[in-house]
């Protein structure tokens, strides 16, 4: 199955790990959860699972803030929804997928919030042919993710919630309060009560803050967690390396990830995001999002180029060219900021550290 899809869902991608954890799980489970909170923690933060066939290593999938993951798990076992907020590219969506897959066995019961999202895309719609033929009946009802989640007792993932108009968001209030959805068209049969295990994981990026601010009433029904960018450059490097390796494996690119490229990218992204180099020089932050996910994408792009055109040899010049596309999206001045970074930080590192930084510094000319 993994072979057939560009991006298989988490429960497919990590099916073996989930199975091993399920087999070894002796902890208490909230009703209708696939794994216990302790096993969910192990699935996300890594560890081992003792199966009848021996110990299975569980890979760490989320880095940076272990207590946050623990809080998320416990929140989902309670009566409140979970709202993950943070800068774009901080792995909010990935975390919500991991949580859904581990707790409910599925991460695909999702609403994608946009300016055009309406209530029927969240709650339920109608098959109009059947509606006209048979009138309002259960058969004519098309359940949307919220209704599916309630009926099956699984999580609903609501992506980019603050991009959805506030009045549409508010349709969640009554469901989250009473755990009941009323479908008036169905009369007495229209009361749907949520099964145990139902909950909502929302995500919202802080750049959208103010587009459609959540109402106070809705906020009260969620616990908020802020997912921050990774502060440790060594950890960021490790994430870029691992994620790129995964992408390469999935894309059948059979070559090792160039560690120098990863180092250059991790440091560049980290320093541009923080606005300060490791030497203490202040650099201007680009308006674009300097997320780890973007760095992974640039790294994979550079690797793909090497695989298809470079005979398996990674070219630092291509890395710089890819960097332009990734960094200079929002404002024209971002290219100047990137140039300034090369003039100051990269040159300095080329002198002090040497190695791959020298070649990287020499590609400054391609920044046009």
């Amino acid at each position, binding site marked *: 199955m993994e072979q057939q899809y560009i991006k298989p869902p988490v429960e497919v991608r990590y099916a073996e790990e989930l199975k091993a954890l399920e087999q070894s799980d002796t902890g208490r489970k909230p009703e209708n959860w696939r794994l216990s909170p302790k096993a969910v923690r192990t699935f996300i*933060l890594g560890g081992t699972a003792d199966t009848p066939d021996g110990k299975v290593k569980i890979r760490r999938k989320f880095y940076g*803030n272990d*207590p946050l993951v*623990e809080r998320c798990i*416990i929140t989902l*076992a309670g009566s409140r929804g979970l709202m993950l*907020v943070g800068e774009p590219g901080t792995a909010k969506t990935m975390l919500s997928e991991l949580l859904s897959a581990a707790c409910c066995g599925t991460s695909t019961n999702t609403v994608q919030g946009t300016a055009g999202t309406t209530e029927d895309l969240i709650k339920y719609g109608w098959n109009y042919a059947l509606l006209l033929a048979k009138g309002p009946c259960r058969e004519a009802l098309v359940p949307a993710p919220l209704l599916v989640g309630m009926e099956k007792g699984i999580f609903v993932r609501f992506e980019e919630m603050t991009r959805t108009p506030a009045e549409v968001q508010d349709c969640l209030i009554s469901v989250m309060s009473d755990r009941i959805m009323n479908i008036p068209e169905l009369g007495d049969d229209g009361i749907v009560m949520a099964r145990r295990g139902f909950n909502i994981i929302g995500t919202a990026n802080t750049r959208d803050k103010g587009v459609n601010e959540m109402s106070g009433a809705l906020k*009260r029904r969620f616990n908020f967690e802020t997912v921050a960018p990774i502060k440790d450059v060594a950890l960021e490097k490790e994430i870029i390396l691992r994620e790129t390796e995964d992408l390469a494996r999935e894309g059948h690119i059979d070559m090792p990830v160039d560690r120098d490229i990863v180092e250059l990218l991790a440091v560049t992204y980290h320093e541009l995001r923080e606005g300060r180099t490791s030497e203490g020089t202040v650099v201007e932050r680009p308006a674009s999002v300097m997320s780890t996910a973007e760095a992974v994408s640039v790294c994979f792009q550079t690797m793909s180029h090497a695989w298809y055109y470079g005979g398996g040899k990674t070219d630092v010049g291509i890395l710089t060219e890819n960097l332009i596309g990734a960094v200079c999206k929002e404002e024209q001045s971002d290219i100047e900021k990137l140039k300034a970074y090369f003039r100051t930080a990269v040159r300095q590192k080329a002198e002090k550290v040497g190695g791959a930084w020298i070649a990287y510094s020499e590609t400054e000319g391609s920044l046009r």
Partner: protein
Amino acid sequence: MDSILGNGRLAQINEISGGLLRYDPEGRLMLFPVRHHSPVCSYQLIRAIDEFSPTVILVEGPENANDLIPVLTAEDTELPAAIYYFYKDKGGLINDLGQDYRCYYPFLTASPEYNALREGRKRGIPARFIDLPFCEILINTSENSGLCRPDERVSYADDAKLTRSDIYKALCEKTSVSSFDEFWEKYFEIEGLRLSAEEYYYALHSYCIMNRETENISAMTEDGTLVRERHMALRIREALDSGERVLAVTGGFHSSGIAELLSEGKIKPVRLHKIPADRQGCFPAAYSYEAADSLNGYSAGMNSPAYYDNVMKRLLSGEDKSSVFDSCSLDLLVRTADEASKKDSPVTISDTSAAESLMKGLAALRNISQCGLAEVRDGVTSAFIKGEMSPSYDMPLRILARLASGDAVGRIGDKTFQPPLVADFEKQCASHRLKISDSVQHESDVSLFSGKSGLALSRLFHRLDFLRTGFCVLAKGPDLHSGADRNRVREIWQYRRVPQVDSVLIDRTADGFTIAEACTSAAARALDGQHKSAQTAQTAVDCFLMGIPLTDEQYLSVLGSIDGDGDIFSLGNALECFSRLCSLQELYGFLDTDYKKLLSRCMEKLIYLLPYSADPPRESAARLTSIMRSMYSIAARLLPHLCPDLEKALDTMISRQQKEPTVYGTAMGLLYSFDSSRRSDAESALRGYLNGSAGIRKLGADYLCGLFTSAGDIVLADDVFLKMTDELITGFDSNDFLEILPPLKLAFSRFTPSEIRSIAHRIAQSYSSDGNDILFGEAVDEALYLFGQSIDREVISQLGGADK
């Protein structure tokens, strides 16, 4: 616990130093390891005292404070309290700098050391400190290491060694906790309560020995660890030799070191120095949770002292240990919710309930038997913060941190050992009837010149302000530093005795035993660090306001700063300060310092520098002209013997090729003031500007500005300057006129309204008009005026070019 710290540790501990670290209730020595401010450490220590029944309790702490133990443990002393140690290295035993050193040894309800002393008192067992006296610790420590650091607030209770190695990181990783604080709370506080005293003793020894194994000998020599351990071991040996059953309470890091020394047999005593009593000492002091926390973090004991003190208080009152952390955490959560709601960050009952259930869930997930501070933080983070974690939303977390840290202040019951500076402060406040028995803000209206008491009170306030005690703020009154509001004869002070006032006064004890002495030392220190005359002059003003004469050394220091200062602006500020002090000396009844000599030295230096300052940057010209005017006025009033030198300097100044026009004008004006016959020089200078190119003509406005600033009467004497000014103005076209308008307006702003009227009248006469027409008549439309002007020009040109 054994599995976390490594199996076999117990056996290792029992083997160390011939079994001296073995937990043996029947033995003669127990070396109990502690972490400062740890409530469960205290709890287990009390249990160990019960089981061991010592005949003497020895506690890590500088032994020169042994006399203060009864004061600290007295019923009427309220914690937090501290022992304040100071040492003045006037004999140069530490280095050649002769610096003063100080440190606090804080005691909270949760401090094991305090509980050991208190148990001693309760059971009638002698208890005493066994560490080297504070001064000896410093003498035996390398500079910038251990307690011998230049930090303002060094704590004796330094826990840095517990987290210095990477061991705690490995343990955190192994146990899936994110920080040392969480690791400690989980295993040594919450789970530590479930252990017996013996199990706890071994667990803590295990952790500390692991840490010590990674420490190198040279680092321990440098920071004085080894020499202190030798002294502590010696004191323990002495007690053992006299037949006592000894319970020694020391930081866990030291225990194995001390055991090793004791097992080696003879211990070489540390050589102690004879230090005069006035150069070293210690006092009991009221302390605050806030200060205890700011010293904390990884380096000095547990953080959030109020929270852990609450745990200890409940344990002491006999509360069930299996729920004590749960109840303290819930109490903290509810108080946080309550406070947050009062501060416009509403927290509902539902939020509090969600936070509590989250805390319990997290404790279960983390395998902790009770909720600790980490769980409260997580509960608040998740359930109380409704948005992105940012300063706009994280108020509940800030409230939680404040409540966990605490804001209570202790009190020392027995005043016998009250720090002298605090005693002097209270005495002086009492003599001036200032209300200091509460922490409410009061106001005092001080009449400066109606009697001696007013000035004395003002000086007390200024002294306390200078010492930065935070006791008082001057709300209204003359400001002699800037020269503002000098007409005021009263000062209004707002004052309030908050705990920080006492803390600062105790801190300042190293500076002197009275407030006056402390101010003198502080002023001397301030002058030492200042090299610009403007700064030393400000300190001299402080001393003047405080009624503290400059000592000979300080006086020379001020003179030195003037001699060494090459900055004309700094010297100008100093000149104005000293001039103010000279004028007010008699009024303030403060004739102890010769300010005139300082003034004269300033003036001489300025006269020397003046000729070189003819062309300052344009933005500094205004300040320079103001200094030049001050120089003239001060020389004429107070230093007439320097007038010829000033005149000569101005002469040299104007002879310079490059001159800033405003400065030039000011210099010409001052020379005219010295000698009215030099009027023609001022005229020809202006003529020079008039005859120049358009650019030079524009500078004429600046010249006039400077000239009128220093000698406004020059324009009133006759019409020559007025006509030249008129010529200057009418020579500009419309755009240029708008450009020079600001300096011209500034130039004429120096005149009084009656002088302006007189000038207007004379200009009007020269145009055959009435002054009133110009001042009060209807303004002519600019376009109409320009049209008339062009007709005039055309007529003149048609008449034969009379304008050529």
